[in-house]
């Protein structure tokens, strides 16, 4: 008796899709894909009562209202919901009430034709259960590039908040000196320069492999300025081999300025900064050769490095130089840690430039960054708590609205 009852329920549920009459999809809309550089259209429509495994949607596109229409997608009607798109809640309504379909190209005469910006395309839907077919009305839209990417709204908000915080700390640093904890590697800079002076050997300063748009290179040039000042005061020789001509030009200016501010413009040598080559390993071979021949007493490796990090610092260690490295290249840090006397790990490199120069702008920026880290910790703490709570209670949809603010899109 029970099994007959179950069978009846099963037939009732399974047959529901068939019992629903196929009607044209409602609220069919075609529009330009938001927040992109163009060439993409979206098609959305309301979920229908007959949506199931057994009913398919077929999407057609045409360049004119009269046709011909080309098939661009076929899928089960219980798929392709707006909820599938992992976009933040403020930019996209993640719901299972509406379907969506993304179009970036179509096949015409065997060739894939990408959508063109500014050109109107006509779209229609066909609903079929394999026996019957129902067509929708034709809708049109044209793709275009968007000026504002709403997905990155949280980026903009954070940037504004952090900028205000940093500017406030800079203003504060200009009024009074801000506290900065001691960084052991920086205490050793003086010692390294003193040793070079005593031994009458040069100092090698490397600024990394990246160009001036890299934060680590900017930090390394600031450190170079402070090291060059000390070098000028002590009367030691500094050599800065370069792999980027623009960085070299900037470093020439910085070194020259450092010698002038130390009151030793006469001691400045134009060839202290010199270009070798842009190629990674030939640059490394050249610097290694120079180090072996000139035997510098101190080597500084500041900035971003790749595979050359170990090749350089190992040679430096073999000639007995005091080595101080600083990089935010996390993959190269292990090599510097093992071969150098002191290593500035990641953000310590940025802190070093502030610490050495005592420049209020850098000091304020660093304090602002600390506030940023505090925010990061708070976000991780709250976010993890919410994610766990959401998993326990099953209310992940509500929680994800908050978590979206801490995601990168």
């Amino acid at each position, binding site marked *: 008796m029970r099994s007959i009852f179950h069978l009846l329920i099963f037939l009732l549920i399974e047959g529901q899709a068939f019992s629903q009459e196929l009607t044209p999809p409602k609220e069919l809309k075609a529009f330009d894909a938001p927040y992109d550089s163009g060439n993409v259209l979206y098609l959305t429509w309301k979920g229908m009562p007959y949506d199931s495994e057994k009913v398919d949607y077929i999407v057609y596109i045409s360049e004119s209202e009269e046709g011909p229409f080309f098939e661009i997608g076929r899928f089960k009607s219980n798929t392709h919901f707006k909820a599938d798109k992992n976009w933040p809640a403020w930019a996209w309504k993640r719901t299972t009430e509406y379907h969506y379909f993304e179009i970036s190209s179509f096949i015409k005469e065997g060739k894939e034709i990408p959508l063109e910006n500014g050109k109107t395309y006509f779209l229609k839907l066909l609903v079929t259960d394999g026996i019957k077919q129902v067509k929708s009305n034709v809708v049109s839209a044209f793709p275009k590039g968007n000026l504002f990417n709403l997905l990155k709204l*949280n*980026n903009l908000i*954070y*940037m504004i908040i952090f900028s205000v915080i940093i500017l406030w700390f800079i203003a504060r640093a200009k009024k009074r000196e*801000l*506290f*900065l*904890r001691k960084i052991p590697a920086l205490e050793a800079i003086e010692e390294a320069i003193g040793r070079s002076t005593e031994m009458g050997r040069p100092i090698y300063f490397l600024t990394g492999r990246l*160009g*001036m*748009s*890299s*934060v680590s290179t*900017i930090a390394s040039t600031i450190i170079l300025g402070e090291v060059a000042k000390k070098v000028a005061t002590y009367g030691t020789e500094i050599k800065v081999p370069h792999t980027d001509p*623009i960085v070299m*030009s*900037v470093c020439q200016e910085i070194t020259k300025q450092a010698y002038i501010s130390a009151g030793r413009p006469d001691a400045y040598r134009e060839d202290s900064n010199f270009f070798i*080559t*842009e*190629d990674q390993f*030939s*640059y490394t*071979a*050249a610097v*290694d*050769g120079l180090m*072996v021949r000139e035997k510098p007493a101190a080597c500084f490796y500041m900035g971003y490095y790749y595979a050359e990090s*170990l090749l350089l610092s190992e040679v430096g260690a073999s000639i007995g130089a005091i080595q101080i490295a600083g990089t935010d290249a*996390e*993959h190269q*840090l*292990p*090599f510097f*840690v*093992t071969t150098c006397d002191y290593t500035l*790990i*990641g*953000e*310590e490199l940025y*802190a070093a430039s502030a610490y050495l120069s005592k420049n209020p702008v850098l000091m304020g920026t*660093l*304090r602002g960054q*600390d506030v*940023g*880290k505090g925010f*990061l*910790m708070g*976000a*991780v703490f709250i*976010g*993890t708590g919410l*994610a*766990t709570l*959401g*998993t*326990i209670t*099953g209310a992940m949809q509500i929680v994800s609205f908050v978590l979206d603010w*801490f*995601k*990168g899109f």
Partner: protein
Amino acid sequence: MDLSILLGAWVAAGLTLFIFSFLYKDNFFFKLGEHLYIGVSVGYSITLLIFKFMRPKWFTPLFGEHQWILLIPTLLGILILTRFIPRLSWPSRLTFAFIFGFGAGLTIPRSISGYILQQIQGTVIPMITKEGTQISYTFRDFSNLLVFIGVLTVLIYFFFSVEHKGAINILSRIGILFLMISFGASFGYTAMARMSLLFGRCYDLTLFSSKRYYYATPILLCLIILCFLIHHVLSKKHSV
């Protein structure tokens, strides 16, 4: 065998041995290899610059297609050349200011997304597993907890505006511990990758030792060793 392949094999074997000779000491062969390497790389870079960038991206669009907007980067580029005349070098700073500004503008939003938000995204994970209505604690959840502790303690280590004393000191030391463990793993991984590079060179040297390549490796190795011996004997005589 094609002569070019044979010549290539001898050059490759010779240059590899020249560079490896640095393991003995800094010498003439290493210097030769080093200078050749730099010269070839500079020549190659210049050729690449002219034919891959300057001609298709600047010369042809500007003079062939009259894309006058390219006059702006052209002017900025010319300003850098003023550095050759020290008295008139100040306009080059305009170009550098542009590069700095452009770099900062490009980096800031990318950093917020890449370094801050995606870091949070990767760390904010539930600390428990729920399958259906069943709540459980798996090894993956333990890993998540480790990531959570690691991120927080490492962040504490990178606080510069507070003295590392007391509880902060303990937490920052835990952070350093996490860092060192990750460095150790990374070191081992990369060291193995470097070993495979060495194997690659050794494989080539072995390959070029065969009769097919007219014993390139052993002949060149013997010649290098012979040169070292002659140099050693001559320098000894000279010193006496």
